[in-house]
């Protein structure tokens, strides 16, 4: 049975419908006016429209704008990697693994610990690339383990229970991991060792920091590998089959439990990788590191269309760019002050906006059989 109600026939009917229509229009208007005002400022900060919108507007230089976009893309590709885990788990089990952000945090922490040990041993400076590969591998292994244990302990016993139950459990898991990090590793923020200059400095090529290029390249490569694994290997086909319909897949001789473990493992590995990327970008990690990126990555998964690998990456990039450019592109021209504080609010607003305007995401969602009916 199809769940969607019949075609609206255009006109809203109830108060809620009116309100939602109003909200949609309002969101689009704010975005449109903001962008127009931004363009007006770019042409001339003294033109009347720009003055009306924000008398103190300064506009952005080309370099600033490019910098924003690039940092957005770098962060966005990191969100994309995390989003894969949300998306795959949702695609297969139909629940939001709220604790996935914490797996990412564990990855960043592991990277921090390992890299500091390497730095103590002097290997970090002498062989940066080798060390990087090493910490990536260690972090991926640790995160895979964490994700698999999580599945085994907290989620497997709950399979088949009402759908909010595993979600609530995953909130508990998230809370637990975060606070376990506080009690074991201490509540203070911890730093990564210093990276070589070529990573820190801006390169002549497009004036981009090396770390950002590194992050985007690593994300793109791993995305490609993952895509190949899911689309072209036997295990990947099993995953897709289980995502389509776990019961039928089991009847076809696929070991559903093992496939689900694989899904968690792959998601965990990607989160571990993303954790290292975080370390390279921000060089600092704290127990709450996983929370906001986790939520944003989930938003990315929804924006791209949940259960959709390419969608997760596209969603990640959109969220990353939106939160980096959005405040200055839309809010600043409208005269909102202190816009950089509202980055996170913008990321959430994107999620809410997408769910209002296009609930199935950009590429449409692929859900497990039971959620479609």
């Amino acid at each position, binding site marked *: *049975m*199809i*769940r*969607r*109600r*019949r*075609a*609206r*026939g255009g*006109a809203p*009917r*109830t108060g809620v419908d009116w309100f939602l229509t109003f909200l949609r229009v309002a969101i689009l208007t704010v975005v449109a006016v903001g962008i127009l005002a931004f363009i007006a400022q770019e042409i001339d900060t003294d033109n009347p429209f720009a003055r009306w919108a924000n008398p103190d507007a300064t506009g952005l230089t080309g370099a600033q704008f490019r910098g924003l976009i690039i940092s957005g893309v770098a962060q966005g590709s990191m969100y994309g990697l995390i989003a894969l885990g949300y998306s795959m788990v949702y695609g297969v089990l139909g629940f939001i693994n709220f604790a996935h952000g914490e797996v990412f945090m564990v990855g960043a922490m592991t990277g921090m610990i390992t890299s500091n040990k390497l730095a103590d041993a002097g290997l970090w400076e002498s062989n940066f690339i080798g060390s990087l590969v090493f910490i990536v591998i260690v972090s991926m292994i640790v995160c895979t383990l964490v994700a698999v244990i999580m599945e085994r302990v907290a989620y497997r016993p709950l399979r088949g229970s009402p759908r909010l139950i595993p979600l609530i459990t995953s909130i508990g898991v998230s809370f637990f991991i975060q606070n376990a990090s506080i009690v074991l590793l201490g509540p203070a923020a911890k730093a990564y060792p210093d990276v070589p200059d070529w990573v820190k400095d801006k390169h002549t090529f497009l004036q981009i920091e090396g770390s950002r290029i590194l992050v985007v390249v690593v994300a793109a490569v791993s995305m490609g590998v993952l895509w190949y694994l899911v689309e072209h290997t036997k295990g990947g086909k099993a995953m897709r089959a289980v995502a389509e319909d776990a019961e039928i897949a089991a009847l076809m001789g696929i070991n559903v439990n093992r496939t689900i473990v694989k899904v968690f493992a792959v998601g965990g590995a990607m989160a571990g990788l993303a954790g290292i990327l975080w370390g390279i970008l921000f060089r600092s990690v704290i127990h709450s590191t996983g929370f906001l990126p986790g939520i944003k990555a989930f938003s990315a998964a929804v924006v791209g269309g949940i259960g959709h690998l390419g969608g997760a990456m596209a969603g990640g990039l959109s969220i990353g760019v939106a939160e980096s450019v959005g405040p200055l592109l839309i809010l600043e021209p409208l005269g909102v002050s202190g816009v950089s504080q509202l980055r996170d609010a913008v990321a959430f607003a994107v999620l809410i906006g997408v769910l209002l305007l296009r609930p199935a995401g950009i590429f449409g969602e692929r859900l497990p059989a039971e959620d479609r009916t």
Partner: protein
Amino acid sequence: MTAANGTGRGPGADAANGTSRRPLLETRDLSVDFGGLHALDRLDFEVHEGEIVSVIGPNGAGKTTLFNAITATVETSAGDILFEGSSLLGLDPNRVTARGIARTFQNVRLFANMTVLENVMVSQHCRTRQHAFGALFYTPSFRREEAEIRERAENVLSFFGSRLVGYRFDQPAFTLSYANRRRLEIARAMATQPKLILLDEPVAGMNPVESAELTGMIGRLRDEWGFAIVVIEHHMDVVREVSDRVVVLDHGTKIADGDFEDVSNDPRVIEAYLGHGATT
């Protein structure tokens, strides 16, 4: 008494002959598409007051889709649905129910953890008015309405004899036997005080005794409660027993419409059921 229904008496039969009276429910050129599949294809279908219409057809003919379209749970792509002369298009499912159409589901869908009585009480929602204020201040009108809701619920449940009354009132619905769940679902539909009830395979999964009993009840629903009824059913003996009129669907279109004897002899119906070549 129930045996007499098959002969085509009753107001429905008259209305079917003389087209002067407006039908209770009418679909005009109704189409429902799922992707490229035409689940319903320009269907004209009507039900008159006090009439029992059976909808039959092979699997996938669009019978349940017709119900879903009427109760606004699927999108229609073209055509119109008129109930008492005004369109149902664009209404939310709950508004459709408020207008006077109630349904049961093919795979019984009760509020499993609510008690039998609560199941029937909650479905009077759209016929009752009390809101938070009355409940909070325990106003006389609130108390009166609660009593009425309960009385009506008990009244509806007593329609099924002793099966759903007494200690059963306070049992959660999931402890009921399969047949009783089906009965409770009908009771729930009755409690919404509809003019038209849509029954989706009401005797599916019942044994012959239960099935025969329920068949009789469908007739009583019309005679004693005055509902018009549309039944989707696969059991031909049930269809013969209850129907004033039988509509046959195949691939989303109506291929026959008339009383049971005519329809069962219609070559197109036989072809639809038995496949091409069966008539020759």
